[in-house]
């Protein structure tokens, strides 16, 4: 695990160094925008390499299920896709149903939950906080 984290840190360091390489480093008294990021990225690469080559330190591995993780990610990406044009209510329906699918054994009492959360969302976000999210898709309401 430590080898892998060292490798990831090194790769991230290389990516940041590549991004900051062409920025002006400035002088000692007048640092440019590239000095601090390049210095940090270079140090990150060194630490990443040292970490990857160091003696192994055991760390506790936490298991996770791919299905649940992917379903939650689909829920959030779907939310981002829908919220600007489908309106809050349809987005809420999609998000709640897909989030429930993350645990297929949990789909029970869904209607009650969805009705409650949609009502809460309309009250909290639209009425109380006045956030600019359409309630329904513009093609339906206008």
């Amino acid at each position, binding site marked *: 695990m430590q080898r892998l984290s060292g490798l990831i840190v090194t790769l991230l360091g290389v990516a*940041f160094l590549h991004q900051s390489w062409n920025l002006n480093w400035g002088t000692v008294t*007048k640092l440019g925008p590239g000095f601090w990021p390049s210095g940090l990225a270079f140090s990150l690469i060194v630490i990443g390499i040292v970490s990857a080559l160091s003696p192994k330190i055991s760390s506790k591995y936490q298991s996770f299920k791919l299905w649940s993780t992917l379903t939650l990610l689909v829920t959030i990406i779907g939310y981002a896709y829908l919220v600007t044009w489908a309106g809050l209510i349809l987005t809420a329906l999609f998000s709640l149903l897909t989030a429930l699918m993350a645990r297929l054994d949990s789909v029970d009492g869904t209607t009650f939950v969805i009705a409650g959360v949609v009502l809460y969302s309309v009250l909290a976000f639209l009425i109380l906080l006045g956030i600019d999210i359409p309630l329904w898709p513009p093609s339906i309401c206008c």
Partner: protein
Amino acid sequence: MLLENLALGLDTMLTATNLTWCLLGVTIGTLVGVIPGLGSMIAMSMFLPLSYHMDLIPALITMAGIYYGSQYGGSITATLLNMPGHPASAVTCLDAYPMTQQGRGGVALATAAVASFMGGILAVIVMVILGSYMTHIVFMFGPAEYFSVMLLGLVAVSILERTNLLANISMVMLGILFGLIGTDIHTGQPRLTFGIEQLGSGIHIIPMIMGLFGLGEMLCRISDYDIRSRSTHAGRWIPTRLETVRAVKSGLRGSAIGSVFGALPGTGCTIASFASYMWEKMTSRHAHEFGRGAIEGVAGPEAANNAASQTAFVPTLTLGVPGDPMMILIMALLLIQGISPGPTLMIDHANIFWTLVVCFVIGNVMLLILNLPLIKMWTSIVNIPYVVLYPTIVFVMCTGVYAVNNNIFDIVSLVFFGLFGLMMRQLGINATPFVLGFVLGAPMEDNLRRALLLASYSDEFVFTRPIVAVTIGLIIMLVMIRAIFTRKKVYAQH
């Protein structure tokens, strides 16, 4: 003179109308703070247009109530669900959430409430005693002092964590680099944007924290959760005598740290709560408990957070220098009402300052009365079955993150940091150094550049300035302590 000023504040504050506005402010603040991602910024922004139609004092009282009410509200979800309501609560997650997992969620919430109260009251005392001296203390801090204090915080978080030292240092550096993404404030040049246009304005802290702590935790553990009812029980809410002693001591230290950091422009509640956490960890005899449910890790940062939120009013009102975005809103409210904050405010409009002082005391008492009896209700959240809780959290978290800027890119950031948080958990890496690096990275670079520039115009050697010299001495001491402990450990192993 002091008593006369306090009497003036009491006279203005103790009317049925102003008390009602204060209660309304702290209630709205708590309710908005509880929603993950929505903090004081959103609530205060929404309230600002309404203040046009109100008189100055009621508007200021309500705005202040929303501000410190949401500071407490944010710690409720941080404690129970590992989802900080606002950035300053992120540090509360580190020990309060493990306490909830151990069945001590009630104690964590009660500690947070009482520590916030302590922080609030002690900050008021500091404001009253040092009101006029605060401006002098503020002027003692130049860019070099800010840089050295921030460096101390980063060194402390890297080397005091007893896990992998190299991983901690690399996470601090990575956090700083992520914090630097955006536009360079000195030259206006975009940097580290990887060709992504939306990164030009940087990564917002809300999606970063929500992703790293909230979504990361959910992605990692969703398959473990009990579907019908959660196995975690919030348990009792009254701490034991030993817990009380430990919490009170760290609450007092946190209040002092928060009072100082709040008064320094450009620091704010988030840095204050991290500073308190670091101090507790550095000085505690129970350092091994940190990250696993140490009560000091809840009391100190919560007291610091609330104290800072109140002393932050001092530079805003007396210098006209707002320390964080929320103070900019307070300043905007004053300007809308035709009041210019600055050194003459304490003379020309003394009633504003002293009414706020009394408002803080009454508001904090209201918060305590409002929240202690509700602890049972809040802790019942952890027993809500999965079928109700987690889909709701995912949806509310997305809406909260989206609502910050009405920007889809924030949700993309949420997913990115959620996956990053998942990866960190898989690799056994602690997220705290990363978050602290992210928070401190940009201001540290800014202060270093300004300090070096100022030094080039002066004969004074930066490292001989008293605060800088003391801080650097502390950094060297910490590194030596860590080196000695590591050497002893290696000898013991052999």
